[in-house]
């Protein structure tokens, strides 16, 4: 383990309140006439990539935007339900930028960079202004002013929302702004294009290799700077709340070209998801955390109680979150709520056919505010639940269980959101930066938009204003080499002609990951998982079957490429989890827990970011450390009691 010279976090000088202002002032600028001489490649059009494309287009750069969907409006941010945090203090309940900063650092179990998190809290207020101006239909009070609700890990109301479709509305806001830039020809949109490699010239990111998913054509595109807003890698578990196409390929290709990967093992398991019901299952569905504002979580006190929930009297129910964590009750952070649900089920108090579920009960809420009141707040979520399970949650409590939802880990970036490859910036869930070991609810949307609207435009100007970037044509040797690599890889998938489908490998990988690198991890399990994944990978490369050709829409070929990368990333996650000999946030090592079963950090040894450097196929990657300093918020054992 060593500190690596490339791991310079570039945190600005000054008090935490001044750092971002200082950085904005120090930054170099690019004058408007010169901006149009610079080409910026952006990959992904979720909240981060979409907002970055819109703002850089507005600024006057020549943006080339690549998305693998048929339209930028389908990026997975669209599925975010509950809300977006901002330190507006509209509810007069004691919120401030500093408190949002504090809650986020604490919520992340002291494994995030203070300076980044402070900036996130600082720009959060601008995000709400920006989105309201775009016509995002946020929930309003009768006064016409904006409404708020609560999310986990906070004792106040700072979450803005648009019913249970906040992500959709924020994304469509960004998409509208982005499509306006397409109309104005500042953004060139390449839909149905998947990025398959980064092109590095003289040590700097200068382009990408993409495959046109409709025609199969593989081409290179060059630029002065490349921005990845390609989301998280929760689908390494196969079953997750992520959309089916969400994958790690862009980030993984960048890692293999020299970008360090930060804290890969930090995964968020969301406590409230519809439980798994069978082996045909293709994905899991989240039930928004906002439901925990009014829903009460419980299990029967007796083990193996198979009575219908209606027949279990109050005195025989264990509202365990309210019992164990009276201060935060049902609104403890996600990692805490997930582990508590698992603990209850492990003790035999789980409900439903599999015993792997707990109840989320709206009985009291219906009594208090009526069915209409509940419907107004959560109507679409209740509908969604009923469609999947056939149960009516107004009548019967929801059955929920934790599921993989988000990855705090991602490509390592400095304060400017630049990776260890100069000219390669990483924004949104794809980077590792702001959430430490656990993300608070309603903070992903905040981070995506903060990065895209308010941070990366400044970083890009600073980078372009300070670098000499001779033009690179697609004839450059580095482009030709990357193109040949990608073409070779595609041909390899098609030529194996084995017997097993990409999905079948993916399911097996997912099972290994969930069993050994999921909600609870230990040395023996992780060691075994690494060996199992290596074996599975060998099998993949000798027995994969991809039908069809490379010169057409071929969804099996797309899957194969993604699964191949997951098979490598999964191993890195296990390695990272193995090396981090402590429990923090979503990373729970069974060997390290308090007598009450809470996560036990080891601040002396692990107050750092683990940044992994690729060393070549078949070689053990190098683990470097970026030390984290807490000058403002004192390291303390988290308590939500």
């Amino acid at each position, binding site marked *: 383990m060593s500190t690596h010279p490339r791991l310079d976090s570039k945190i600005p000088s000054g008090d935490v309140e001044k750092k971002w202002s200082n950085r904005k002032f120090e930054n170099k600028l690019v004058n408007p006439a010169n901006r149009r001489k610079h080409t910026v490649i952006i990959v992904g059009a979720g909240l981060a990539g979409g907002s970055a494309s819109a703002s850089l287009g507005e600024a006057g750069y020549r943006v080339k935007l690549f998305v693998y969907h048929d339209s930028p409006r389908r990026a*997975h941010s669209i599925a975010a339900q509950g809300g977006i945090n901002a330190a507006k203090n509209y509810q007069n309940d004691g919120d401030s930028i500093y408190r949002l900063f504090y809650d986020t650092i604490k919520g992340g179990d002291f494994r995030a960079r203070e300076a980044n998190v402070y900036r996130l809290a600082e720009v959060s207020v601008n995000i709400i202004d920006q989105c309201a101006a775009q016509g995002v239909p946020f929930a309003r009070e009768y006064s016409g002013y*904006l409404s708020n609700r609560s999310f986990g890990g906070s004792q106040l109301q700072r979450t803005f929302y648009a019913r249970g479709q906040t992500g959709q509305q924020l994304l469509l806001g960004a998409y509208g702004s982005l*499509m306006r830039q397409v109309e104005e020809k500042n953004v060139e949109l390449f839909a149905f294009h998947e990025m398959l490699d980064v092109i590095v010239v003289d040590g700097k990111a200068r382009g990408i290799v993409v495959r046109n998913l409709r025609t199969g054509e593989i081409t290179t595109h060059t630029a002065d700077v490349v921005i990845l807003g390609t989301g998280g890698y929760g689908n390494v578990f196969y079953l997750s709340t992520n959309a089916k*196409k969400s994958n790690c390929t862009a980030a993984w290709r960048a890692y293999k070209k020299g970008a360090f990967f930060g804290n890969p093992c930090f995964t968020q398991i969301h406590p409230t998801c519809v439980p798994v019901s069978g082996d045909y299952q293709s994905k899991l569905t989240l039930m928004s955390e906002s439901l925990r504002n009014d829903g009460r979580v419980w299990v029967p006190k007796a083990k193996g109680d198979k009575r219908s929930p209606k027949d279990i009297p109050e005195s025989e129910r264990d509202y365990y979150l309210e019992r164990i964590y009276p201060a935060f009750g049902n609104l403890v952070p996600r990692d805490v709520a997930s582990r508590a649900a698992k603990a209850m089920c492990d003790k035999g108090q789980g409900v439903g056919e599999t015993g792997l579920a707990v109840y989320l009960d709206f009985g009291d809420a219906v009594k208090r505010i009526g069915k209409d009141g509940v419907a107004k707040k959560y109507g679409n979520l209740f509908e969604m639940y009923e469609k999947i399970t056939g149960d009516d949650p107004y009548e019967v409590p929801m059955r929920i269980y934790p599921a993989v939802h988000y990855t705090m880990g991602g490509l390592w970036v400095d304060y400017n959101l630049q990776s260890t490859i100069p000219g390669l910036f990483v924004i949104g869930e794809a980077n590792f930066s702001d959430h430490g070991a656990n993300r608070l609810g309603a903070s992903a949307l905040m981070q995506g938009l903060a990065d895209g609207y308010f941070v990366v435009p400044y970083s890009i100007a600073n980078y372009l204003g300070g670098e000499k970037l001779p033009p690179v044509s697609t004839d450059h040797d580095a482009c030709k080499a990357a193109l040949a690599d990608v073409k070779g890889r595609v041909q390899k998938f098609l030529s194996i002609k084995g017997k097993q489908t990409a999905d079948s490998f993916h399911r097996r990988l997912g099972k290994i990951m969930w069993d050994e690198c999921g909600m609870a991890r230990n040395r023996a399990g992780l060691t075994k998982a690494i060996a199992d994944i290596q074996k599975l990978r060998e099998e993949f490369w000798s027995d994969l079957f991809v039908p069809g050709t490379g010169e*057409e829409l071929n969804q099996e070929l797309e899957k194969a490429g993604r699964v191949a990368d997951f098979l490598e990333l999964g191993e890195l996650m296990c390695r990272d989890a193995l090396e981090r000999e402590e429990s923090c946030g979503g990373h729970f090592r069974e060997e390290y827990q308090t007598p009450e079963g809470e996560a036990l950090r080891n601040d002396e040894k692990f107050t750092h970011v683990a940044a992994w450097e690729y060393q070549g196929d078949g070689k053990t990657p190098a683990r470097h450390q970026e030390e984290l300093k807490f000058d403002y918020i004192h390291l303390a054992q988290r308590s939500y009691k």
Partner: protein
Amino acid sequence: MTTSKQMTLKLKVWRQKNAKDQGRFVDYTVEGVNQAASFLEMLDVLNEQLIRKGEEPVAFDHDCREGICGSCAMMINGCAHGDMPRTTACQLHLRHFNDGDTIVIEPWRARAFPIIKDLVVDRSAFDRIISAGGYVSTNVGNAPEANSIPVPQQDAEAAMDAAACIGCGACVAQCKNASAMLFVSAKVSQMAHLPQGQPERARRARNMVAQMDKEKFGACSNTGACEAACPKGIKLTNIALLNRELARAQVKS
């Protein structure tokens, strides 16, 4: 409740290799699928079977599988997303079918949505309609303090009702004229209900409708098939509003 009942389904699926291919229905039988599975999971099972036999799987678009991304798009027994009200194909579950049923699956059929392969169609026309005016022309940095512009709650709610559109294209697919009026009106209506949308109201309606016509979507004849097919419950009244907006825009110009 979850059940583990197995069922067998007979499928007639539209197969078309590419845009130039003529296309045809092909019969398949899917055996032993769990009744608790979703419709798309049933297609996953079919595809897994086809691949194992060395055949090409059925291409279909999908992503979030929870009814919000708008990717999935297929006619199921002649109905866009199937005949369950307010449900996308990905949210449709097999418990609504009977063991032994025959199910016909086709792509969206509209001149403005050319078929790419099997059930996958090109809906980029919708993107071009949005880029013609489906936004507020505000740059990042322009925005005033959010609470400085109050929005009456009923207006915010009406805007949200319209904004719930997922851009799937079911309205076009179900319409005998392949009209995109419901899609266009949803965006126009969202903005017309909000103070932020007022300055560009006339221009937005005019430009979006002009682009819609250019994309060769059909005219609206008010049959309401779009509303019935819409998985998000977008109301036909939005089309009435759009017509008023257009009339207003013409008077203004």
